[in-house]
Protein backbone atom coordinates (compact mmCIF):
# COMPACT_ATOMS: atom_id res chain seq x y z
CA UNK A 1 0.00 0.00 0.00
CA UNK A 2 1.30 3.45 -0.80
CA UNK A 3 2.55 5.57 2.02
CA UNK A 4 0.86 8.64 3.39
CA UNK A 5 2.11 10.21 6.57
CA UNK A 6 0.87 13.31 8.34
CA UNK A 7 2.57 15.51 10.85
CA UNK A 8 1.27 13.38 13.73
CA UNK A 9 3.02 10.36 12.30
CA UNK A 10 -0.19 8.63 11.31
CA UNK A 11 0.03 6.82 8.02
CA UNK A 12 -2.04 4.86 5.55
CA UNK A 13 0.56 2.22 4.82
CA UNK A 14 -1.34 -0.76 6.13
CA UNK A 15 -4.93 -1.90 6.27
CA UNK A 16 -4.88 -1.31 10.02
CA UNK A 17 -3.70 2.28 9.59
CA UNK A 18 -6.31 2.97 6.94
CA UNK A 19 -9.03 1.44 9.14
CA UNK A 20 -7.94 3.54 12.11
CA UNK A 21 -7.83 6.67 9.94
CA UNK A 22 -11.47 6.09 8.96
CA UNK A 23 -12.40 5.74 12.65
CA UNK A 24 -10.59 9.01 13.28
CA UNK A 25 -12.59 10.88 10.63
CA UNK A 26 -15.76 9.31 12.04
CA UNK A 27 -14.92 10.82 15.43
CA UNK A 28 -13.97 14.17 13.92
CA UNK A 29 -11.70 16.76 15.50
CA UNK A 30 -8.17 17.99 14.76
CA UNK A 31 -6.65 14.54 14.12
CA UNK A 32 -9.34 13.88 11.52
CA UNK A 33 -8.76 17.24 9.84
CA UNK A 34 -5.03 16.50 9.66
CA UNK A 35 -5.63 13.09 8.09
CA UNK A 36 -7.92 14.55 5.44
CA UNK A 37 -5.40 17.28 4.70
CA UNK A 38 -2.71 14.65 4.26
CA UNK A 39 -4.92 12.61 1.95
CA UNK A 40 -5.71 15.69 -0.13
CA UNK A 41 -2.03 16.59 -0.44
CA UNK A 42 -1.25 13.06 -1.47
CA UNK A 43 -4.02 12.98 -4.07
CA UNK A 44 -2.99 16.34 -5.50
CA UNK A 45 0.54 15.09 -6.05
CA UNK A 46 -0.41 11.92 -7.91
CA UNK A 47 -3.20 12.82 -10.25
CA UNK A 48 -2.54 9.88 -12.52
CA UNK A 49 -3.70 7.43 -9.84
CA UNK A 50 -7.16 8.85 -9.42
CA UNK A 51 -9.77 6.31 -8.50
CA UNK A 52 -13.15 5.69 -10.01
CA UNK A 53 -15.81 6.11 -7.33
CA UNK A 54 -19.13 4.39 -8.01
CA UNK A 55 -22.17 5.11 -5.89
CA UNK A 56 -24.59 2.20 -5.64
CA UNK A 57 -28.09 2.65 -4.38
CA UNK A 58 -31.56 1.20 -4.65
CA UNK A 59 -34.46 0.00 -2.56
CA UNK A 60 -33.87 -2.38 0.38
CA UNK A 61 -33.86 -5.95 -0.86
CA UNK A 62 -32.83 -5.09 -4.42
CA UNK A 63 -29.59 -6.96 -3.80
CA UNK A 64 -27.08 -4.11 -3.72
CA UNK A 65 -24.60 -5.75 -1.35
CA UNK A 66 -24.48 -9.04 -3.20
CA UNK A 67 -24.13 -7.29 -6.54
CA UNK A 68 -21.36 -5.00 -5.28
CA UNK A 69 -19.61 -8.07 -3.88
CA UNK A 70 -19.80 -9.76 -7.29
CA UNK A 71 -18.56 -6.63 -9.12
CA UNK A 72 -15.69 -6.31 -6.64
CA UNK A 73 -14.64 -9.94 -7.13
CA UNK A 74 -14.53 -9.48 -10.89
CA UNK A 75 -12.69 -6.15 -10.77
CA UNK A 76 -10.16 -7.53 -8.31
CA UNK A 77 -9.58 -10.53 -10.60
CA UNK A 78 -8.81 -7.99 -13.36
CA UNK A 79 -6.16 -6.40 -11.15
CA UNK A 80 -8.03 -3.43 -9.74
CA UNK A 81 -7.52 -2.48 -6.10
CA UNK A 82 -11.09 -2.42 -4.83
CA UNK A 83 -12.64 -0.82 -1.78
CA UNK A 84 -16.26 -1.13 -0.65
CA UNK A 85 -17.76 1.42 1.74
CA UNK A 86 -21.14 0.16 2.91
CA UNK A 87 -23.26 2.84 4.54
CA UNK A 88 -26.17 1.87 6.80
CA UNK A 89 -28.41 3.94 9.05
CA UNK A 90 -27.86 4.47 12.74
CA UNK A 91 -30.87 3.95 14.98
CA UNK A 92 -32.44 7.27 15.85
CA UNK A 93 -33.46 5.89 19.27
CA UNK A 94 -30.24 4.28 20.47
CA UNK A 95 -27.54 5.73 18.23
CA UNK A 96 -26.46 2.16 17.54
CA UNK A 97 -26.44 0.44 14.18
CA UNK A 98 -26.63 -3.06 12.78
CA UNK A 99 -24.23 -3.29 9.85
CA UNK A 100 -24.80 -6.50 7.94
CA UNK A 101 -23.43 -5.93 4.45
CA UNK A 102 -20.33 -8.05 5.07
CA UNK A 103 -22.54 -11.13 5.22
CA UNK A 104 -22.97 -10.83 1.44
CA UNK A 105 -19.36 -10.11 0.54
CA UNK A 106 -16.71 -12.80 0.19
CA UNK A 107 -13.97 -12.34 2.77
CA UNK A 108 -10.48 -12.51 1.27
CA UNK A 109 -8.10 -12.46 4.21
CA UNK A 110 -4.55 -11.66 3.21
CA UNK A 111 -5.51 -9.72 0.07
CA UNK A 112 -4.27 -6.14 0.59
CA UNK A 113 -5.93 -5.13 -2.68
CA UNK A 114 -9.39 -5.36 -1.15
CA UNK A 115 -10.88 -3.32 1.64
CA UNK A 116 -14.41 -3.47 3.03
CA UNK A 117 -15.72 -1.06 5.63
CA UNK A 118 -19.18 -0.68 7.16
CA UNK A 119 -20.12 2.89 8.01
CA UNK A 120 -23.05 3.98 10.18
CA UNK A 121 -24.68 7.32 9.42
CA UNK A 122 -24.34 8.35 13.10
CA UNK A 123 -27.17 10.83 13.22
CA UNK A 124 -25.96 12.84 10.26
CA UNK A 125 -29.68 13.04 9.54
CA UNK A 126 -29.11 12.22 5.90
CA UNK A 127 -29.04 8.86 4.31
CA UNK A 128 -25.45 9.27 3.20
CA UNK A 129 -22.99 9.91 5.99
CA UNK A 130 -20.51 12.74 5.56
CA UNK A 131 -18.00 10.21 6.83
CA UNK A 132 -18.45 8.31 3.59
CA UNK A 133 -17.03 11.26 1.67
CA UNK A 134 -13.99 11.44 3.94
CA UNK A 135 -13.52 7.66 3.93
CA UNK A 136 -13.65 7.64 0.16
CA UNK A 137 -10.78 10.16 -0.03
CA UNK A 138 -8.76 8.14 2.49
CA UNK A 139 -9.09 4.85 0.60
CA UNK A 140 -8.24 6.65 -2.63
CA UNK A 141 -5.13 8.14 -1.00
CA UNK A 142 -4.22 4.65 0.25
CA UNK A 143 -4.02 3.49 -3.36
CA UNK A 144 -7.40 1.90 -4.07
CA UNK A 145 -8.43 2.66 -7.63
CA UNK A 146 -12.02 1.44 -7.66
CA UNK A 147 -14.30 2.49 -4.81
CA UNK A 148 -17.91 1.41 -4.35
CA UNK A 149 -20.01 3.50 -1.98
CA UNK A 150 -23.11 1.50 -1.20
CA UNK A 151 -25.85 3.50 0.42
CA UNK A 152 -28.89 2.96 2.49
CA UNK A 153 -31.63 1.87 0.18
CA UNK A 154 -33.68 4.95 0.82
CA UNK A 155 -34.64 5.15 -2.84
CA UNK A 156 -35.64 8.45 -4.24
CA UNK A 157 -34.49 10.62 -1.35
CA UNK A 158 -30.97 9.26 -1.41
CA UNK A 159 -29.42 11.96 -3.55
CA UNK A 160 -26.33 12.75 -1.49
CA UNK A 161 -24.45 10.01 -3.28
CA UNK A 162 -24.61 11.96 -6.53
CA UNK A 163 -22.26 14.53 -5.07
CA UNK A 164 -19.74 12.00 -3.81
CA UNK A 165 -19.42 9.61 -6.71
CA UNK A 166 -18.24 9.79 -10.30
CA UNK A 167 -21.08 7.53 -11.32
CA UNK A 168 -24.33 6.40 -9.78
CA UNK A 169 -25.59 2.87 -10.31
CA UNK A 170 -29.22 2.26 -9.40
CA UNK A 171 -30.09 -1.33 -8.52
CA UNK A 172 -33.68 -2.45 -9.02
CA UNK A 173 -35.26 -5.78 -8.17
CA UNK A 174 -37.31 -7.72 -10.71
CA UNK A 175 -40.55 -6.57 -9.11
CA UNK A 176 -39.68 -2.87 -8.97
CA UNK A 177 -39.69 0.01 -11.36
CA UNK A 178 -43.10 0.70 -12.81
CA UNK A 179 -43.35 3.38 -15.49
CA UNK A 180 -44.66 6.09 -13.19
CA UNK A 181 -41.87 5.46 -10.70
CA UNK A 182 -39.40 5.67 -13.52
CA UNK A 183 -40.68 9.09 -14.45
CA UNK A 184 -40.72 10.50 -10.92
CA UNK A 185 -38.04 12.99 -10.14
CA UNK A 186 -35.42 11.64 -7.80
CA UNK A 187 -32.72 9.12 -7.85
CA UNK A 188 -33.70 7.53 -11.12
CA UNK A 189 -32.96 10.71 -13.03
CA UNK A 190 -29.59 11.00 -11.29
CA UNK A 191 -28.56 7.44 -12.12
CA UNK A 192 -25.99 7.01 -14.86
CA UNK A 193 -26.77 3.34 -15.19
CA UNK A 194 -29.68 1.20 -14.02
CA UNK A 195 -29.43 -2.52 -13.45
CA UNK A 196 -32.26 -4.92 -12.82
CA UNK A 197 -30.73 -7.47 -10.48
CA UNK A 198 -31.93 -11.04 -9.86
CA UNK A 199 -32.36 -11.80 -13.56
CA UNK A 200 -32.57 -15.43 -12.43
CA UNK A 201 -36.04 -14.65 -11.04
CA UNK A 202 -39.25 -14.32 -13.07
CA UNK A 203 -40.32 -10.83 -14.07
CA UNK A 204 -36.86 -9.33 -14.55
CA UNK A 205 -37.24 -8.91 -18.32
CA UNK A 206 -40.51 -7.10 -17.84
CA UNK A 207 -38.97 -4.83 -15.20
CA UNK A 208 -36.29 -3.87 -17.74
CA UNK A 209 -38.95 -3.05 -20.32
CA UNK A 210 -40.97 -0.98 -17.84
CA UNK A 211 -37.91 1.00 -16.79
CA UNK A 212 -36.76 1.54 -20.36
CA UNK A 213 -40.14 2.76 -21.54
CA UNK A 214 -40.48 5.08 -18.56
CA UNK A 215 -36.98 6.45 -18.94
CA UNK A 216 -37.27 6.87 -22.71
CA UNK A 217 -39.56 9.86 -22.16
CA UNK A 218 -36.74 11.86 -20.57
CA UNK A 219 -33.49 13.28 -21.85
CA UNK A 220 -30.19 11.44 -21.39
CA UNK A 221 -31.94 8.25 -20.38
CA UNK A 222 -29.52 5.92 -18.64
CA UNK A 223 -28.98 2.46 -20.04
CA UNK A 224 -30.87 -0.35 -18.31
CA UNK A 225 -28.99 -3.64 -17.92
CA UNK A 226 -29.89 -7.03 -16.53
CA UNK A 227 -27.74 -9.03 -14.14
CA UNK A 228 -27.81 -11.68 -11.48
CA UNK A 229 -25.36 -11.43 -8.61
CA UNK A 230 -26.32 -14.97 -7.61
CA UNK A 231 -25.56 -16.84 -10.85
CA UNK A 232 -23.09 -14.22 -12.11
CA UNK A 233 -24.79 -13.53 -15.43
CA UNK A 234 -24.45 -9.97 -16.67
CA UNK A 235 -21.95 -8.99 -13.99
CA UNK A 236 -18.99 -8.76 -16.39
CA UNK A 237 -21.07 -6.67 -18.82
CA UNK A 238 -22.16 -4.41 -15.96
CA UNK A 239 -18.57 -3.81 -14.84
CA UNK A 240 -17.51 -3.09 -18.43
CA UNK A 241 -20.38 -0.60 -18.81
CA UNK A 242 -19.46 1.12 -15.53
CA UNK A 243 -15.81 1.40 -16.48
CA UNK A 244 -16.76 2.69 -19.93
CA UNK A 245 -18.94 5.40 -18.40
CA UNK A 246 -16.16 6.27 -15.97
CA UNK A 247 -13.83 6.91 -18.89
CA UNK A 248 -16.29 9.14 -20.74
CA UNK A 249 -17.11 11.05 -17.55
CA UNK A 250 -13.54 11.35 -16.28
CA UNK A 251 -11.95 14.74 -15.86
CA UNK A 252 -12.55 16.81 -12.78
CA UNK A 253 -13.78 13.75 -10.90
CA UNK A 254 -11.30 14.09 -8.06
CA UNK A 255 -11.77 17.85 -7.80
CA UNK A 256 -15.51 17.37 -7.66
CA UNK A 257 -15.20 14.70 -4.99
CA UNK A 258 -12.92 16.91 -2.91
CA UNK A 259 -15.35 19.81 -3.20
CA UNK A 260 -18.21 17.48 -2.23
CA UNK A 261 -16.27 16.23 0.77
CA UNK A 262 -15.46 19.74 1.96
CA UNK A 263 -19.06 20.86 1.49
CA UNK A 264 -20.27 17.81 3.46
CA UNK A 265 -17.69 18.50 6.19
CA UNK A 266 -18.77 22.12 6.56
CA UNK A 267 -22.41 21.05 6.63
CA UNK A 268 -21.73 18.36 9.24
CA UNK A 269 -19.79 20.77 11.45
CA UNK A 270 -22.55 23.36 11.14
CA UNK A 271 -25.14 20.72 12.06
CA UNK A 272 -23.15 19.95 15.22
CA UNK A 273 -23.19 23.62 16.17
CA UNK A 274 -26.93 23.74 15.66
CA UNK A 275 -27.31 20.71 17.91
CA UNK A 276 -25.20 22.49 20.53
CA UNK A 277 -27.50 25.51 20.27
CA UNK A 278 -30.40 23.21 20.97
CA UNK A 279 -28.79 21.50 23.95
CA UNK A 280 -27.43 24.65 25.60
CA UNK A 281 -30.75 26.48 25.37
CA UNK A 282 -29.80 29.17 22.83
CA UNK A 283 -32.33 27.85 20.34
CA UNK A 284 -35.11 28.01 22.91
CA UNK A 285 -34.05 31.53 23.92
CA UNK A 286 -34.12 32.67 20.30
CA UNK A 287 -37.56 31.15 19.81
CA UNK A 288 -38.73 33.02 22.89
CA UNK A 289 -37.31 36.27 21.52
CA UNK A 290 -39.37 35.80 18.36
CA UNK A 291 -42.47 35.08 20.41
CA UNK A 292 -42.04 38.29 22.40
CA UNK A 293 -41.53 40.32 19.24
CA UNK A 294 -37.95 41.17 20.18
CA UNK A 295 -36.65 39.71 16.90
CA UNK A 296 -38.11 38.71 13.55
CA UNK A 297 -37.65 35.08 12.49
CA UNK A 298 -34.96 35.96 9.96
CA UNK A 299 -33.08 37.94 12.63
CA UNK A 300 -33.12 34.91 14.92
CA UNK A 301 -31.73 32.71 12.15
CA UNK A 302 -28.92 35.20 11.50
CA UNK A 303 -28.15 35.29 15.23
CA UNK A 304 -28.06 31.49 15.45
CA UNK A 305 -25.77 31.05 12.45
CA UNK A 306 -23.43 33.76 13.76
CA UNK A 307 -22.96 31.94 17.07
Amino acid at each position, binding site marked *: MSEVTDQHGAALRTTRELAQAISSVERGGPAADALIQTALTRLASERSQNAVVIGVTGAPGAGKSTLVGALAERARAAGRRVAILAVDPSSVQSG*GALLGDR*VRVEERPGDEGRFV*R*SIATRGSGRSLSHTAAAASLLVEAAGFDLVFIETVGAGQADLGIVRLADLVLLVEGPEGGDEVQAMKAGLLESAHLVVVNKSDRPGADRAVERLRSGLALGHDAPEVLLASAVDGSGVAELLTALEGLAVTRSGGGLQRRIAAHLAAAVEARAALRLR*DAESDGRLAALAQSIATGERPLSGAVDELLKG
Partner: protein
Amino acid sequence: MAERTAPIRVLIAKPGLDGHDRGAKVLARGLRDEGFEVIYTGIRRTTEAIIAAAIEEDVDVVGCSILSGAHATLLPKVVAGLRDAGAADVLVVAGGIIPEEDRAGLQAAGIAAIFGPGSTIAEIATYLRAHVRSN
Protein backbone atom coordinates in the same frame (compact mmCIF):
# COMPACT_ATOMS: atom_id res chain seq x y z
CA MET B 1 -18.44 22.14 22.34
CA ALA B 2 -19.62 19.16 24.34
CA GLU B 3 -17.45 16.03 24.36
CA ARG B 4 -18.74 13.48 21.85
CA THR B 5 -17.86 9.88 22.21
CA ALA B 6 -18.11 7.49 19.31
CA PRO B 7 -20.26 4.37 19.63
CA ILE B 8 -18.43 1.17 20.56
CA ARG B 9 -17.94 -1.02 17.48
CA VAL B 10 -18.50 -4.75 17.89
CA LEU B 11 -17.91 -7.51 15.35
CA ILE B 12 -20.22 -10.46 15.90
CA ALA B 13 -18.71 -13.52 14.32
CA LYS B 14 -19.54 -17.18 14.02
CA PRO B 15 -16.32 -19.10 13.58
CA GLY B 16 -16.35 -22.75 12.61
CA LEU B 17 -18.97 -24.96 11.09
CA ASP B 18 -22.15 -24.68 13.08
CA GLY B 19 -24.89 -22.75 11.33
CA HIS B 20 -27.02 -21.82 14.32
CA ASP B 21 -26.98 -18.05 14.26
CA ARG B 22 -30.15 -17.19 16.11
CA GLY B 23 -28.29 -16.30 19.29
CA ALA B 24 -25.77 -14.21 17.36
CA LYS B 25 -28.55 -12.30 15.59
CA VAL B 26 -30.46 -11.66 18.81
CA LEU B 27 -27.27 -10.32 20.37
CA ALA B 28 -26.48 -8.16 17.30
CA ARG B 29 -29.93 -6.60 17.39
CA GLY B 30 -29.86 -6.19 21.17
CA LEU B 31 -26.49 -4.45 21.19
CA ARG B 32 -27.68 -2.11 18.43
CA ASP B 33 -30.55 -1.13 20.70
CA GLU B 34 -27.99 -0.51 23.46
CA GLY B 35 -26.23 2.02 21.21
CA PHE B 36 -23.42 -0.15 19.83
CA GLU B 37 -22.41 -0.29 16.17
CA VAL B 38 -22.62 -3.99 15.40
CA ILE B 39 -21.00 -5.55 12.35
CA TYR B 40 -22.49 -8.97 11.69
CA THR B 41 -20.39 -11.21 9.46
CA GLY B 42 -22.53 -14.28 8.95
CA ILE B 43 -22.02 -17.96 9.64
CA ARG B 44 -19.13 -20.34 9.00
CA ARG B 45 -16.31 -17.83 8.90
CA THR B 46 -12.69 -18.85 9.18
CA THR B 47 -10.66 -17.31 11.96
CA GLU B 48 -8.53 -15.59 9.28
CA ALA B 49 -11.62 -13.95 7.80
CA ILE B 50 -12.82 -12.84 11.24
CA ILE B 51 -9.45 -11.27 12.05
CA ALA B 52 -9.27 -9.50 8.67
CA ALA B 53 -12.81 -8.15 9.11
CA ALA B 54 -12.02 -6.96 12.65
CA ILE B 55 -8.98 -5.05 11.36
CA GLU B 56 -10.82 -3.46 8.42
CA GLU B 57 -13.77 -2.46 10.59
CA ASP B 58 -11.45 -1.20 13.36
CA VAL B 59 -13.71 -2.70 16.00
CA ASP B 60 -13.28 -2.42 19.76
CA VAL B 61 -14.71 -5.87 20.43
CA VAL B 62 -14.86 -9.21 18.64
CA GLY B 63 -17.68 -11.37 19.96
CA CYS B 64 -17.53 -15.00 18.85
CA SER B 65 -20.66 -17.09 19.08
CA ILE B 66 -19.82 -20.76 19.02
CA LEU B 67 -21.97 -23.80 19.56
CA SER B 68 -19.97 -26.45 17.76
CA GLY B 69 -17.57 -27.42 20.53
CA ALA B 70 -14.54 -26.17 18.58
CA HIS B 71 -14.04 -23.19 20.92
CA ALA B 72 -10.80 -24.50 22.43
CA THR B 73 -9.15 -24.46 19.00
CA LEU B 74 -10.75 -21.48 17.31
CA LEU B 75 -10.99 -18.80 20.01
CA PRO B 76 -7.28 -18.67 20.92
CA LYS B 77 -6.51 -18.39 17.18
CA VAL B 78 -8.65 -15.24 16.98
CA VAL B 79 -6.81 -13.68 19.94
CA ALA B 80 -3.39 -14.61 18.54
CA GLY B 81 -4.28 -13.38 15.04
CA LEU B 82 -5.40 -9.98 16.33
CA ARG B 83 -2.22 -9.69 18.37
CA ASP B 84 -0.09 -10.54 15.32
CA ALA B 85 -1.97 -7.89 13.31
CA GLY B 86 -1.08 -5.24 15.88
CA ALA B 87 -4.57 -5.18 17.35
CA ALA B 88 -3.95 -6.70 20.78
CA ASP B 89 -6.16 -4.00 22.32
CA VAL B 90 -9.28 -5.48 20.72
CA LEU B 91 -11.38 -7.21 23.36
CA VAL B 92 -12.29 -10.79 22.46
CA VAL B 93 -15.35 -12.25 24.17
CA ALA B 94 -17.24 -15.48 23.56
CA GLY B 95 -20.80 -16.67 23.80
CA GLY B 96 -22.57 -19.96 23.27
CA ILE B 97 -22.16 -23.38 24.75
CA ILE B 98 -18.80 -23.55 26.47
CA PRO B 99 -18.29 -26.13 29.24
CA GLU B 100 -17.22 -24.87 32.65
CA GLU B 101 -13.99 -26.88 32.58
CA ASP B 102 -12.79 -25.12 29.39
CA ARG B 103 -13.24 -21.59 30.70
CA ALA B 104 -10.00 -21.20 32.62
CA GLY B 105 -7.99 -22.30 29.61
CA LEU B 106 -9.76 -19.85 27.31
CA GLN B 107 -9.33 -16.99 29.72
CA ALA B 108 -5.64 -17.81 29.98
CA ALA B 109 -5.49 -17.67 26.16
CA GLY B 110 -6.82 -14.10 26.23
CA ILE B 111 -10.58 -14.49 25.95
CA ALA B 112 -11.75 -11.61 28.15
CA ALA B 113 -15.18 -12.94 29.04
CA ILE B 114 -17.52 -15.85 28.31
CA PHE B 115 -21.26 -15.35 28.23
CA GLY B 116 -23.28 -18.53 28.52
CA PRO B 117 -26.90 -19.17 27.54
CA GLY B 118 -28.38 -17.37 30.57
CA SER B 119 -26.62 -14.06 29.87
CA THR B 120 -28.74 -10.98 29.19
CA ILE B 121 -28.08 -8.32 26.58
CA ALA B 122 -27.96 -5.68 29.31
CA GLU B 123 -25.33 -7.65 31.20
CA ILE B 124 -23.16 -8.01 28.09
CA ALA B 125 -23.58 -4.32 27.19
CA THR B 126 -22.57 -3.27 30.69
CA TYR B 127 -19.50 -5.49 30.60
CA LEU B 128 -18.40 -4.14 27.21
CA ARG B 129 -18.83 -0.49 28.21
CA ALA B 130 -16.71 -1.10 31.28
CA HIS B 131 -13.90 -2.98 29.53
CA VAL B 132 -13.47 -1.48 26.07
CA ARG B 133 -10.47 0.75 25.44
CA SER B 134 -11.39 4.39 25.86
CA ASN B 135 -10.80 6.79 23.00
